[in-house]
């Protein structure tokens, strides 16, 4: 087990290095730079700007400099926000996105696994169809429709909430609900599918034959195997949900990191792009490791290989 984790961490470190390298060079080949503006700066000003930010050095030099400061834990200063470092931006915004993501994830798991399980156990009944339909609407109606609709209903017409902002506990309700809904839908579908696979298997029949209650059969025996596909899905999904959602954070004006993933690329804020990529890659790799461990626990036949 320890060997497995160590080996995986080493692999991930190598993968992370490759991601950083690839991103570093990719973004430099994208047209437009941090100082490209509608009102073009004059060539002499551009030269001085590039010198100010060290962009006049050869690219390989900049790359080595970046790796050097990264080794010291310094993600560098932001190009777009000269007053702030990437470390600060990430430290400021990740907790906000993680809070929103945590709330949404909890809601999504409860709703998704619940709906999916009910649909599987009561397969081909009206409960199944209702759950499936709810799930499908959750998937096919995008958050940029659900979000504004809820704001119109609950904030503007009923006046229960602010239209947007991230100040009080009440401001968490709508965004967490909308984000959770978007994830609950696929979770419910995958749960249903996974549970159906498991519910036919012999050990479930055995359990039933032994007279275990249906509830016990489902919760004690079936869920463990039935959630296998859900858990695979959750690795990247949790990384996505915890690092925020561009759409939700924009609609609800939430100061999370989700917007920076998109905006930093559009602003050509090279260091911030790399910072967000490192954050996301680290999270993805950690979570996929966690997922592999959980899956091994859920199915003892799977051996951890590394």
């Amino acid at each position: 087990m320890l060997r497995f984790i160590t080996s995986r961490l080493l692999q991930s470190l190598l993968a992370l290095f490759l991601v950083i390298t690839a991103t570093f060079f990719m973004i430099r080949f994208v047209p437009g730079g941090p100082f490209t503006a509608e009102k073009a700066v004059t060539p002499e000003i551009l030269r001085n700007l590039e010198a100010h930010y060290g962009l006049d050095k050869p690219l390989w030099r900049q790359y080595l400099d970046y790796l050097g400061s990264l080794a010291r834990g310094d993600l560098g200063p932001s190009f777009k926000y000269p007053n702030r470092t990437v470390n600060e931006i990430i430290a400021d915004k990740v907790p906000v996105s993680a809070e929103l993501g945590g709330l949404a994830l909890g809601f999504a798991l409860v709703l998704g696994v619940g709906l999916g399980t009910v649909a599987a156990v009561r397969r081909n009944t009206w409960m199944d169809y209702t759950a499936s339909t709810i799930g499908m609407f959750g998937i096919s109606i995008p958050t940029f429709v659900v979000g504004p609709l809820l704001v119109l209903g609950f904030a503007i017409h009923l006046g229960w909430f602010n239209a947007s902002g991230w100040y009080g506990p009440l401001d968490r309700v709508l965004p967490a609900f909308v984000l959770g809904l978007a994830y609950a839908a696929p979770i419910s579908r995958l749960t249903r599918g996974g549970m159906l696979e498991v519910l036919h298997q012999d050990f479930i029949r055995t359990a039933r034959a032994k007279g275990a209650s249906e509830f016990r059969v489902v919760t004690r025996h079936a869920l463990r195997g039935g959630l296998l596909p859900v858990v695979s899905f959750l690795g990247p999904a949790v990384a996505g949900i915890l690092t925020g959602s561009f759409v939700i954070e924009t609609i609800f004006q939430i100061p999370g990191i989700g917007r920076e993933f998109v905006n930093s690329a559009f602003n050509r804020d090279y260091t911030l792009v790399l910072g967000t990529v490192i954050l996301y890659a680290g999270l993805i790799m950690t979570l996929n490791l966690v997922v592999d461990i959980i899956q091994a626990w859920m199915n003892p036949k799977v051996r951890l290989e590394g």
Partner: protein
Amino acid sequence: MLRRHLTLLLLLLGALFTAGCGKSKKPTATTGAATGGVPQIWHVGNGSEPQDLDPQAITGVPEHKLMMALFEGLATEDPQDLHPVPGLAESWDISTDGKVYTFHLRRNGQWSDGSPLTADDCLQSYKRMITPEFASEYAYLIYDYVVGAKEYYDRKLADFAQVGFKVIDEHTLQVTLKNPAPYLMGIIASHYAWTPVPVKVIAKYGPIDRKRTGWTRLGRLVSSGPFQLKEWAPNQKIVVSRNPHYWDAANVKLDEIHFYAVEDNATEERMFRTGQLHKTNTMPSAKIDVYRRDLPESLRIEPYLGVYFYRCNVNRPPLNDKRVRKALALAIDRESIVQKVSRGGQTPAYAVSYPGTSGYMPRAKLTGTIEDAKRLLAEAGFPGGKGFPKVELLYNTSESHRAIAEAIQQMWKRNLNIDITLFNQEWKVYLDSQHTTNFTLQRSGWVADYVDPHVFLEIWVSGNGNNDTNWKNPAYDALFQQALAAKSVEARYALYQQMDEILVDECPVIPIYHYTSVYALSPKVKGYYPTLLDNHPYKYIWIE
């Protein structure tokens, strides 16, 4: 073993969850439900998060709106027509040749920390602005005008004393220009490039010619305007409060302004309806008709000093033929575009210059019928649109630009029988295509930083960094140079008339409409006037 890890994970998740619930901050009061007098707190939507609050290290409109609250120039703007009125300087003299400006600073001028605001502060600020290592984006707004400044910026002149800035005494600053620039006071009043900064404060946090010293952070920032920084929650809001050391503090009516960083105009509009905002930055176009009908008292549609146009790359056939460019320009039904497509009260543009900029009315006008357009196209070798090559129209991704492009595409198809394909690019890719003239036709726009007709004409001079059409016209360039040296406003405007004629004749750009600013403003806000730059000096505003 494994199970223990899982338990740990679940515990972590649970902790995250509770942390999420527990860490919520106190709700802030939004609208004024106060007893007694109306709280003088103004809530404003301000577009995206500002880059910084250092007036010498920023570009962009949201930043500008904040600068107007925090800092003041030597001159500042009149609330109604934005003409220069005394700011940090209580008066100024301009020499008869128009080249020497003498500013008389206020004797009691102070920074927001109470320290005196002197002529030397101004001089050091301008020095910082044209220090090449500092690399300010707007350095050219100084070095284009002031004697020796360009040489200093290009490191050809090492001695700053030879640059045309001179401290006469503690409260007098003299600026010497290369050429008379009749619109310079407009720039000084309206543009933050000429805003003095508290160099002594900046020096406390690092070398003053570096950008990243962090002097603008909360608790450090010292300002000179009617307000000072009170709170800065990145990507949420910036709160400024009354600056007691401001020279005109007695006349500042608002206690606080809350600038919300709301990028999405639909979000902002919803915040307006729940009463979270008194003013939005913009308005989604679909909402304009609704406001006209249901909330007319909150809808503001005001002329805005900018022009929306299509740029031609005159090196690329078939647009290298001015008859083709003119045919395209004539075959657009601008009335339909502004009434049915853009819908924001814009005015059709038949010339590049904005009518009524500081009293300048361009006489040049695109005139001609669809028949004329067809004839021009035929003369250029494409009778009835036959043989017209595939031409692409580039625009930056946005629903409204797309709708206008689709409408014009149809007009050209119907009127000239030519096919134009549309394609969009992400903003910076699109700008890169523009600045490298890697396009045939391109949607674009130009918005003035200060009120003078010069703004819309200078960019078409050969070699101007924002020309981006490959269009060069010696006669046009000569007129521009003459205008710079013109002795009177009338003489200058007469030259501008000729320049506008050339633009309409040559059509390197196809003007479409002149902008308006469209937004929602609560009727409770008073002391607020429509202005051409959408600048609204805050000290005159109050809430009723």
